[in-house]
C-alpha cells in the first residue's frame, strides 16, 4: 500500500516537475510470437512524449487538412485526416521510450531513419501508447460533462464554490487568481511553499466573500403588494425620504 502510494507520488512529481513532458505507461503480454497490449500483462513499457501544445495541434491540422464538399451547393470545408494526424503526432511528440528502438530526433521532429524503424512496431503497441497520450492531451466527453456541471455551480449567483473541484475548475481558479494577483504561473507554482500558498488561498477566499457581501448589500429590495388571489405586482407607490 505504502509502496504504491510512493510510486504514485513519484509519478505525480515527475509530471509536475517536467511540465513539458507526458509519460505514459502500458502493460504488454506475449501471445505466441507477438507482443500485444494487455492491462494485465507482465511487462510494463513507458513512452515519454513532448506535451501536445496548441502550436503542435495547429501545425498538424495545417499539414493534414484537406477540402471536402458539404451540402448540395458545392460548399467546401477543411477537415483533418485523422490517421495521418496521428502519424505526424508520433513524429512530432515521441521523445523516448523503453522499447529497444532508440528514438533519434532532429529540429523538433523524429528523423526519417528513426521513423522507418518505429513504423515497423506492431500497430496495437504503438496505438496503445498514442491512445494513452491522447487521453492526457485532450478533454474527454466525460470530463467535459463534469466541467459543464461544476462551472454551472461555480458561476451561479448563490455560489459558495465547488466541492471536489475537477482539474479544469481547479486550474481556472488557482492559476486565474494567482497569476492575476501575484504573477505566479503554472511553472513557478510548483516550487511555491505550501504554507504561503495556503495563506494566500485563505486570503483570496476571504476577499471573494467580502466582494460578494458588498455586492449583495447594494441590491435594493423590490417592494411588492399582494393583490387578489395572493398574486403580487410591483409597487407603484413613491418612495418618500424621511
Amino acid at each position, binding site marked *: 500500500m505504502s509502496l504504491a502510494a510512493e510510486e504514485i507520488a513519484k509519478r505525480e512529481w515527475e509530471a509536475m516537475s517536467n511540465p513539458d513532458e507526458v509519460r505514459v505507461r502500458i502493460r504488454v503480454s506475449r501471445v505466441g510470437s507477438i507482443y500485444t497490449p494487455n492491462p494485465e500483462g507482465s511487462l510494463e513499457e513507458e513512452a515519454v512524449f513532448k506535451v501536445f501544445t496548441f502550436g503542435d495541434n495547429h501545425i498538424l491540422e495545417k499539414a493534414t487538412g484537406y477540402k471536402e464538399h458539404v451540402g448540395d451547393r458545392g460548399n467546401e470545408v477543411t477537415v483533418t485526416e485523422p490517421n495521418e494526424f496521428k502519424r505526424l503526432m508520433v513524429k512530432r511528440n515521441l521523445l523516448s521510450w523503453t522499447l529497444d528502438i532508440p528514438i533519434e530526433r532532429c529540429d523538433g521532429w523524429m528523423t526519417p531513419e528513426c*521513423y522507418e524503424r518505429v513504423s515497423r512496431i506492431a500497430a496495437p503497441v504503438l496505438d496503445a501508447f498514442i491512445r494513452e497520450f491522447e487521453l492526457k492531451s485532450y478533454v474527454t466527453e466525460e470530463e467535459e460533462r463534469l466541467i459543464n456541471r461544476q462551472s454551472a455551480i461555480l458561476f451561479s449567483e448563490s455560489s459558495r464554490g465547488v466541492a471536489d473541484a475537477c482539474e479544469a475548475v481547479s486550474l481556472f481558479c488557482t492559476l486565474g487568481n494567482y497569476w492575476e494577483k501575484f504573477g505566479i504561473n503554472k511553472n513557478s507554482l510548483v516550487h511555491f511553499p505550501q504554507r504561503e500558498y495556503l495563506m494566500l488561498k485563505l486570503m483570496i477566499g476571504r476577499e471573494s466573500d467580502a466582494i460578494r457581501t458588498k455586492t449583495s448589500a447594494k441590491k435594493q429590495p423590490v417592494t411588492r403588494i399582494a393583490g387578489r388571489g395572493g398574486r403580487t405586482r410591483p409597487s407603484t407607490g413613491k418612495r418618500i425620504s424621511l
Partner: protein
Amino acid sequence: MPVVKSRKENKKAPEQKQDRVDEQIMEPGKYEVTSETTFDVELFLKEGDGRWMVVNPGTDSAEEHKLVFRMWSYDEMVEMKKKATTYDATRRIHVIDNDALNRLKIQKFLQSWTLDRENPRLKLHRVGGVLTDESWQTFAKLQPNIINYIFDRMNEVYELGG
C-alpha cells in the same frame, strides 16, 4: 477520399540506406513486425442441417481449421485506415468503413489457411505479397457466419491487441 499524402515520399534514397551497416546487421526489436510475426485464428466447424456451424473447441466430430495472419505494423495500419476512411459530410465526422478495412486486412495479411486441405478450389493465390482479388472472392464465398467469426477473432488481435 482523403488526399493527404504520406510522408514516405520524403524517404532517403535506397543507396544511402544500404550504406548503414549497423541497420543491416541489427536484429529486429522484439516489438518490430517481421514475416514471422504471425498469429493464428482457430476455427472449429461442424456440418448440420445442410450448413456449417462454428462450434466450440472439443465438440464431437468438429473439423479443425487454422488461418495464419501476419501482424500489422504501425505504418501499415495507418495506410490501411487511410484507405478505408471517408468523410461523412452530414455528420461532419470521419468514419472508417469496417467492411473495406476487413477486406484490406484479409488480402494483405492472411498468409495461409487449412480450408484448402480437401478442396483445391479454396487455394489462396498471392501476387506481390497480397492475395489476388480472385482469392478474396473465394474467401467472400464462405458462409457469412464463418466470415464473421474470422473477422471477430482477427480484429481481437489487430484492434484490441488480443
